[in-house]
Structures are given as structure tokens and as C-alpha cells.
């Protein structure tokens, strides 16, 4: 039996980026958002992401989201989890995220959720934007963030451990840089860093196992045949707090002169190999692209099984994909997903969706912050 899918039924955006007043009623399967650069296509996807997660995929500073000249911006989404078509119609919920200054206020059906983690995992959504094109070759931070997004669905407390880990580690670092640091004080923060770090290591290991199980088959379908992909979690820390305490204590002198600690989950990576060699060194442009698409397909599939609901998929700026070689990889990727799809492009005419009923696709144009339905 297939999983239910979360569907966005309606979105109202007020004063976010250059979108002063946008109402969107999307189709259930494919939504193509066209328009020239700088018109607000990405901002529309960002508003969907914001309403579902309370975060942006473009910035960590909420104030940047508010339209210039306005003091509050908001996104309100009506969402529902649709099961098999014969079942009774699901009950929709309304998720609202309002940004005022640096404050972000979230509501589900007018009520405060018990926690931000609960809000952010209620309506799963996976975003794929141009910054992530370096997911396979770029800095490990991108791959850690991917594991953390998945971990939040599998272990909701992992976000809290992350925040506490970072504060403990920063505190330790400030202490280490003092001329005559207090041993007992450093040890107190090292014990906390070890405790929360071990929890992060356990959560990421579980997330990596779930992700890799989906990644290998996805890569086989997207990439040229004959390539053997290897993937494993490469922890920078340990799941054993006692070992972490020992490691941190041993490296104090060295760590004092570095930007951060030389041991711990902030150095984690998801190690990727092709035919036994690190992908960074050997993969071609096309192989990287296939791997990045496979990583996103694996994220989508593992979020779906962790949450029990097929996530929405937001694809920003697929225009660059539209040469013949890449198009095939992209459409294989899309074939691997079942969720509601939103994609932005400067060339709407090139997005062909042969397997999709006309009723299940809707096209829009964004121009100067205004949205028009075109078919």
C-alpha cells in the first residue's frame, strides 16, 4: 500500500520578499512556475517552505524575508494528507508562519504547536535549490545538514541536542582561549559537549543508514550503468560520551589555536565513493549531477518512510537542467517521487510531463511579484 501524500491546497503570502499579496491554488501533482529571473519565483517556493517548516532554505536570518517597507510578513498554507483516492476526504489543517523583525511566530489551526520540531515535521517538504548542486562535491556542511533534516523526522530531540552541543562547544572554545583557563570550568562544558555530541552521532548514524538504503538504488536508476556507488557515515566524533570527554581533554592545547574543536560531530561527513575512489577526486560533472539528484531522491524517500507521508517537493530553477543529457536524469529523478511537485523555470514550455493528467498539472507565471495562472 502506498503512503498518503501531503498536499498544499492553498497558499496565501503577504509581504514576503517581493511578494506583497499572492494567493496560490496549486494542482495536486505538478505545478510549473515560470517567469524571468528576479520576478519572485524562488520567493514563492520559499514561502511554501516557510509555511511548512518555519524556516527558509535561502537564509538563516528571518528579517531578510520581510518585504521592504513592511514590518510583518506571513505565509499561510492549507494542507492535508491524502491517502488512496477512494478513502474519505482528509481533514485539512492551516499552518501559518509570520515574521516580525527577528521573531518568527508559528501556528497550526490558530494554536501554538508543542514545539518547533513538531511543527517542522508535520507537513514534510523537500527543497532542491541551485546551492545544493554542490551537495556531492562541496563542503561536508551540506551533507551534515541533509542528515540533520532527516534526523529531525526520526528523532525529534536531535535538533535540541544540536543547539546545546553548539553552545557547549563555543563556551569551551572561549575558555580555552583565556590566558589561564580554569580546568574545572572547561571540563563542565566538555562533559556537556560530549553528552550532546554523542546524541548527535547516534541520530546521524541512524539517519545515514536510512538515507543510504534509498541512495544506492536511486543512483543506479539515475546514473549511467556500471558505476558502483559507496556511501557511509564518517563520524567526526563518537557515540560514546566517555571517549568524547577523553578526546576533548587530550586536544585542548591544539584546539585553543584552531577555529573550533578537532573532535566531534561538527566534523561529520557522509563519505561518498565511486568504484572505490572518493567522488570528489574522480567523478565527472554528469556523475556529480546524477549523485546530487540521487541524494535528493533518497532524502525524499527516507523522509517519506520516517514520517509516513510523501513529502512535497520544491525544485528551484530547473532551467539549467534542460539540455538533453540532463533532462533525462531530471525526469528519472521526478519519476522516483510521488509527492506534490512545485518547480520553477525560465522555460516553462520545455517542461513536459507526459504521464500526468492535464487536471493534475497547473502552470503559473510570476512577474514583478504577481502570480498569474496560465493554464
Amino acid at each position, binding site marked *: 500500500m502506498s503512503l498518503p501524500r501531503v498536499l498544499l491546497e492553498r497558499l496565501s503570502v503577504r509581504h514576503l520578499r517581493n511578494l506583497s499579496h499572492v494567493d496560490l491554488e496549486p494542482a495536486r501533482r505538478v505545478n510549473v512556475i515560470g517567469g524571468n529571473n528576479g520576478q519572485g519565483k524562488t520567493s514563492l517556493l520559499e514561502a511554501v517552505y516557510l509555511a511548512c517548516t518555519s524556516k527558509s532554505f535561502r537564509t538563516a536570518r528571518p528579517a531578510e524575508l520581510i518585504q521592504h517597507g513592511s514590518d510583518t510578513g506571513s505565509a499561510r498554507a492549507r494542507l492535508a494528507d491524502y491517502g488512496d483516492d477512494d478513502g474519505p476526504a482528509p481533514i485539512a489543517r492551516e499552518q501559518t508562519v509570520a515574521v516580525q523583525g527577528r521573531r518568527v511566530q508559528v501556528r497550526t489551526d490558530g494554536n501554538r504547536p508543542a514545539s518547533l520540531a513538531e511543527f517542522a515535521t508535520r507537513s514534510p517538504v523537500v527543497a532542491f535549490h541551485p546551492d545544493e548542486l554542490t551537495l556531492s562535491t562541496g563542503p561536508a556542511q551540506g551533507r551534515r545538514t541533509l542528515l540533520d533534516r532527516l534526523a529531525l523526522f526520526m528523532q525529534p530531540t536531535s535538533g535540541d541536542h544540536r543547539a546545546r552541543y553548539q553552545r557547549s562547544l563555543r563556551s569551551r572554545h572561549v575558555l580555552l582561549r583565556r590566558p589561564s583557563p580554569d580546568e574545572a570550568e572547561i571540563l*563542565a562544558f566538555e562533559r556537556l559537549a560530549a553528552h550532546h555530541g554523542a546524541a548527535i552521532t547516534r541520530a546521524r548514524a541512524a539517519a545515514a543508514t536510512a538515507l543510504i538504503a534509498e541512495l544506492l538504488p536511486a543512483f543506479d536508476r539515475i546514473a549511467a550503468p556500471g558505476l558502483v556507488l559507496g556511501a557511509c557515515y564518517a563520524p567526526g566524533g563518537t557515540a560514546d560520551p566517555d571517549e568524547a570527554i577523553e578526546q576533548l581533554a587530550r586536544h585542548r592545547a591544539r584546539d585553543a589555536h584552531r577555529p573550533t574543536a578537532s573532535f566531534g560531530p561538527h566534523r561529520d561527513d557522509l563519505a561518498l565513493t565511486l568504484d572505490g575512489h572518493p567522488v570528489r577526486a574522480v567523478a565527472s560533472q554528469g556523475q556529480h549531477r546524477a549523485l546530487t539528484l540521487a541524494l535528493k531522491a533518497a532524502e525524499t524517500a527516507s523522509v517519506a518512510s520516517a514520517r509516513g507521508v510523501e513529502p512535497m517537493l520544491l525544485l528551484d530553477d530547473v532551467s539549467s537542467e534542460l539540455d538533453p543529457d540532463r533532462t533525462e536524469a531530471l525526469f528519472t529523478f521526478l519519476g522516483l517521487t510521488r509527492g506534490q511537485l512545485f518547480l520553477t523555470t525560465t522555460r516553462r514550455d520545455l517542461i513536459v510531463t507526459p504521464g500526468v493528467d492535464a487536471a493534475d498539472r497547473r502552470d503559473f507565471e510570476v512577474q514583478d511579484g504577481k502570480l498569474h495562472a496560465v493554464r
Partner: protein
Amino acid sequence: MLAAGSYRGSPRVGSSTAGLPEGLARVVQLLARLPGVGEKTAQRFALHLVTGDEETARELGRELATLPDRVRPCVRCGNVAETSRDEAEAAEGAVCAICRDGRRDPALICVVARVQDLIAIERSGAMRGRYFVLGRLLSPLEGVGADELPIDRLRSRVRDAQAPVTEVLVATPPSVDGEATALLVARELGTLGVKVTRIASGVPHGGDLEFADQVTLGRAIEGRKSFG
């Protein structure tokens, strides 16, 4: 909108107290030193006192003038204490009602960060021992180091031969700084042969589990105890 914009854009003459009579401006500046009171709130308080409620202003003045002489931190625990009318006693410093209460268990001390936390725990009625107020939490990121915590005073309190302490309950908040402070206190007292305990963290009483947030519930499960 336009008026507000041009007002903001006009050159600032001193602070927001500029143009107020000097006596009033000084009161505004003093009130603004209080925690949680910004300049606007301070100005509102001060204007209320001079324009609407003269009696409150005079009474407040009288009370405040003598407050530091009448109420001081308790020399034993740091709680608020009334100073003694007896001159000889007053010279030794103020001792709070809890430290003077003979029915309290002298062998149990609860360590808290602030007097507000002490008051909250007192309200629970569950604490039968006495207290020790640290006054602050360890926080390297906010520039508070171990040398600024009254650890030496706590140690001598625990070692007091006249009233031996057997258990120290650390009730600092469950934040990173609160936990680090608790670990530091535990380590500093560990060599004194006293039992150090930590308040549990978990689900609020009367709350249904289904309404507890995931993080609180997760911490409650991590900190579970054997039972039955």
C-alpha cells in the same frame, strides 16, 4: 507613516530624555537601569509618578531610601533578609527567615541560581532544607567565569562543623549554562564527601503526556529512574 519616518530621520538630540526637566530625566535614567525596563517604559513610569500619582511617588521615595538598610542579602545563603533591629546582630549581617527557621533540615542544601528560583521552589513546599543562592550561572559566552561564582562560600558552608551538610541538591535551570554550573558545583563539592544530587527534568504534573512537547518528553525518558 511619513511623519514617523521624518521624525526618526531627524538628528537625535542626546537621548530620549532630552527636553525633560532635569529631575525627571534623572529618574528616567535610574529606572531604565532596572532589568526589563527600557527607556520608554522608564519614561512612562516617571511621568505617571509626577503627573498622576503624587502620593505613590512620595511613598515609593520613602521606602526606597531606606530599603538597602532594611533588606540585604542573607550572609549565609544569599536569599533576601531583613536586617536585625539589634545593633550587635545587625553588625554580623542579615540572616534570612529560612536560615533562622529551626525546623529546617540543616543537612540538606538546595543550590539555586537566583532568588526568584528559591521563591519558586519554596512555593512548592517540597524543600525541607535550606538554600544557597549562586547569584549567576557560569557563562563563558557572556563573560561569567567560575571565579565569579561564590563556590568558596558554598564549600565553607558545606564544611561548617556546627551544621554538617550531607546532601547538596543542585537546582540550576536545565539550560547549557545551568547544566555546566551544576557539573562545576558537583565537582567542587565532590571531594568534601557530601552527596550531590540534581533536580530531575521532565513532564509537568497534571499534563497529559500527549500534550508534552517532544524535547521535554525525550529528556524525561533519558532521565528515567528505576521504579517499583
